[in-house]
Each structure stands twice: as C-alpha cells, then as structure tokens.
C-alpha cells in the first residue's frame, strides 16, 4: 500500500505540474477591460508602443510606463472589433501594431496568457 501511495502521489504531482490555469475560449468575446477576475486585477491595459525586433514580444505603454511582454507559443492573440457585424477572432503577431489599445494578461508562471488588441 505504501507503493500505492508513492505511485499515485507521483502521478498527481505530474498532473499538478502540467496544469496551467486554463482559459475558456469564450475569452475571445470578452471586451478589453471586462475579463472577470482578471481585468484591472491581473492584467494591464495600454497602447502598443513597439514590437520587438525578434518578433516575439511587444512593449505596451501603460499609464506612461513601458511594459514589455514576450509571447509564448501558447499565447492567445484576441482581436476585438467594435464595428457592427464584425466578429472577434484570433489574430497573429502581425496584428499587434503600434498605437492600438491592448490588454495583456500574464499568468502566475510569468507567461503571457493572452493579449487582446482593439482593431480599427
């Protein structure tokens, strides 16, 4: 039975290590500043100031403070449209253009979970 405990605790530990806080995909449709429990608590909203030369990060101007975030392979890029009839959709790094309003959420592990970009 002691071996039972060791095996199961080991595997439970693996499960814990592998688990990231998961986001339900409906986050795509939640406007900037409205993510429950995240916006204004665990996110930052500002204007995209510049993109990194290596193409894997952006600098956001948040209340006159420059904040750099690196994209992760799992980072979701949510494009937010305000025009009638247009649907929010997933975007790419190329959509993260300077001067666009954006909200970023970095997880407890330091990885950029998502960036929401306001599209013209």
């Amino acid at each position, binding site marked *: 039975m002691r071996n039972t405990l060791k095996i199961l605790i080991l595997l439970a530990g693996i*499960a814990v290590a592998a688990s990231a806080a998961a986001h339900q995909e409906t986050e795509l449709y939640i406007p900037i500043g409205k993510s429950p429990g995240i916006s204004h608590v665990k996110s930052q909203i500002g204007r995209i100031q510049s993109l990194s030369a290596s193409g894997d990060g952006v600098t956001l101007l948040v209340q006159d403070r420059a904040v750099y975030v690196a994209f992760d392979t799992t980072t979701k890029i949510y494009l937010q449209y305000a025009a009638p009839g247009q649907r929010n959709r997933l975007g790419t790094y190329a959509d993260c253009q300077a001067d666009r309003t954006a909200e970023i959420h970095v997880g407890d592990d330091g990885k950029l979970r998502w960036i929401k970009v306001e599209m013209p």
Partner: protein
Amino acid sequence: MDDRIPRCCVAFFAVLLVSCQMSPGPIPEDRLVLKGEELFFRETFAGNGRTCGACHRAEENFAISPEFIATLPAADGLFVAETHPDLGQNFENPELMRKFALILENQDGFDELPNRFNMRGVPHTLALRTSIASRLGPQMGWSGDGAPGDGSLRSFAVGAVIQHFSKTLNRVAGVDFRLPTDEELNALEAFQLSLGRQQDLSLPLPLKGDIERRGQEIFLDRALGKCNACHFNAGANADPAIFGPGAGNLRFNTGVEALPDQPADLTTEKNPADDGFGNPGNGEFNTPPLVESADTGPFFHNNAIETIEGAVAFYNGDAFTRSPAGQLLVGATGSAINLDATQVVAVAAFLRVINALENLRAAAALLETASAYANGHARQRVLIDRAGFELQDAIGVIRGGGLNPAAVGELRAALAAAQKARRRFGRMRQLDAAMAAIAAARGQLEN
C-alpha cells in the same frame, strides 16, 4: 327570516382580510442568494431569450434529461436553434439535444464552428461548494476549463452567456448579449453555491439495507471497488491519503471517450471526439460527485451511459482499464477493477441510497425554510415545490433499484403531505406531516 349577514361572520372576514394585508414577515433566506436565484431563472442578459435555468432546470436537479426535454413546448428557450434563424446552424444540434440532452460547446475555440465543437451533457450545479476547489485551480465544467477570466465559478456565467445566450454567432458583447455585471456575478455565484450539499459525507454511513451496505463496503475497499480513491466519501474529491492533503477535485482520463457504440455516435449526426481539458486537450475530465449521481443521469460528460448500474459497470470494462487512469489504478493496486454483476448492483444500490438520503436532507431543509416564512408568503410554494421534486427523485432512485419498499411508502406519504401543503389552509400542519414522513423514510434507510 332575518337575512342580514351575522356580525360574527363579518368580523371573521374582516380579520381574514386584514391578516392577508399584514406584513409578509421575515425573510429567512439570504437576499444575495435570492437575487441570484432570480437572475438564474429569469435573466436573459439581452440575448436570445435563454436563461441559466433553460438548461439547468430546478425540476431536474439543475441538469436536464431527454425525458424532460420531451415535455417542453416548442417555444421553450432551450430550442432557440430551432426557432431563431440566426442560430439555425452551428449553435446547437437539435437531434442530439432532444435524443440525448446534449448541448453544443466550442471549448476548443470558435474559429471553425462547423467542425470544432463537442456535445456535452448538462452538469448539475449541486454541491458545488464541495466539488470545485482543487490544487489545480477551480475546476469548472466537465473538463475543469469551463470558465473564462480567472476560471472561477463567479466567472463561469460570463462564458455561459457568451456560449449559450447569444442572438447570433457573431457573439458581440453589447449587441448579441450583455455581460453580467459584477453584482450579478456575485449573486449568481452565491445562489449556485447555496444549492445542495454544503459538505462532504463521512463514510461509512450506518445503512440499514444489506445490499447497499455491501455496496458501501465494496466502494470503500481499496482492493475491490477502489472507488473511494478518486471519489472520496462519494464526493468529487480525491482521497487525501493517496493524492496528498488538499488535492481536492482532480482530473483524470478515464477512457470514456474510448467507449464503443456511444449513443450519439450511433446516429448520423457529426459528433467530434472530445479531448477534455485544455486546447488541444489531454483527455482529462474532472471528477463529479457521486452522492447526487443516481438521480442526475445520463452519465459522464457525453451522456454515454443511461443508468447508474451501467455507470458503475463502466469501470469494469476495457475502456476504463486501458485508460491512463485505469492503468494508474492497475499499477498502484496490482489489478483492474473486476466486479461481478451482483457487486456492480450493490455499489449502484449504495449510490442510490445515499442519493435518496441527500434528497431527504434537501427536502427537509426546503420545507423547514418554507415553515419559517409567514404562512401565505409566495416563497413557500416555490420551496414546497422544490421539496416535492426531491421527494419524487428519492422515490425514483429507490424504486429504480428495487430497494426498500417501506422507505418508498414513507416517501410517498411525505410527497402527498408536501403536495397538500401547496394549499395555504392547513399548510403548516401538512409541512409538519411531510417532515415527519421524511424522518420516517430516513429511518428506513439508515440507523
């Protein structure tokens, strides 16, 4: 003959009239919870007409079954995909909904609606206070990733409105629906947390019946049923002695998706494989509580199994044994679960009886709360009706297992008294009678 109305009659009716207009009396329930209940059943969030209660029905333990769906009128909010032209494609699958109570979810994203979706049953919202917390973070929905934002129960309603309440597939906030306010999220959370059990059982229970008592033994036996490892005390949490203190609600890949001949797959409807937690998924689904299982079928995330006996027997089969969770169990205990038919039935009988005991607890609590209102308060009927649902469920789960006719008799007496209590006159007496019968029924099921 003097045909004037006697003065005593006039006085009597005057007193009656005045008493009807008196103050409604104290409200014995939490006001935030009541606000949440109102939102849950009435608020459409400016969407397609659905409410949370469209799928999570009070009459059905806050879930829904094909049998219940068959009773609904065509204009019911559940059927918006059949009545709203903008939702006629890629919003629901009416055939799978009506046949198997399956609801369409886009938990892997909204970018390829015709192909990227899964069909899942409606999970009940009972005992959430005991079943969400986990060291993996709050486990919402079937696969633990059911809520946007911070992933909490409070945030879950936001995702539900977006997925299920939208007027069109554009899902534009402020156009197709409105997002719940912070106050509404607080109220909805409070209401949902108030439903059902507020704490786990402490097994073993002193059950009276031989079959369910043996079923409990098998359930707890680490070499035989092995159930308690993942469903500690028949709840949703993992055994802390095995998985560590504070493990809470965990996720496992139990191989349900590998089941052959799943009912929805036997139709000609598209039914993509469900990969569980994450995107892409890892095949894991979080553990549901078992106390409420016997009266909340069909079972598993895909409603693949209709009966509680079938759900127990699943763990004997190849799909589970070959799954990562099944192999974990084999490795840890030296063998697969291998119950014979009578043992499966015994475990199912145990689950039926503990479900019935929970029905009784819930019914008694509802009737007690009804008693605390001033007689005639509108809220009493709501609570009495809910108690009636619980009693009907208890009768169903006990009879369905061929168990304890004496308990069924007491349950019927309790239900009859509760139904009489719907009428105002004599209500308090009938409430007392119902609660006495509930106590008697409990006495038939456990010592």
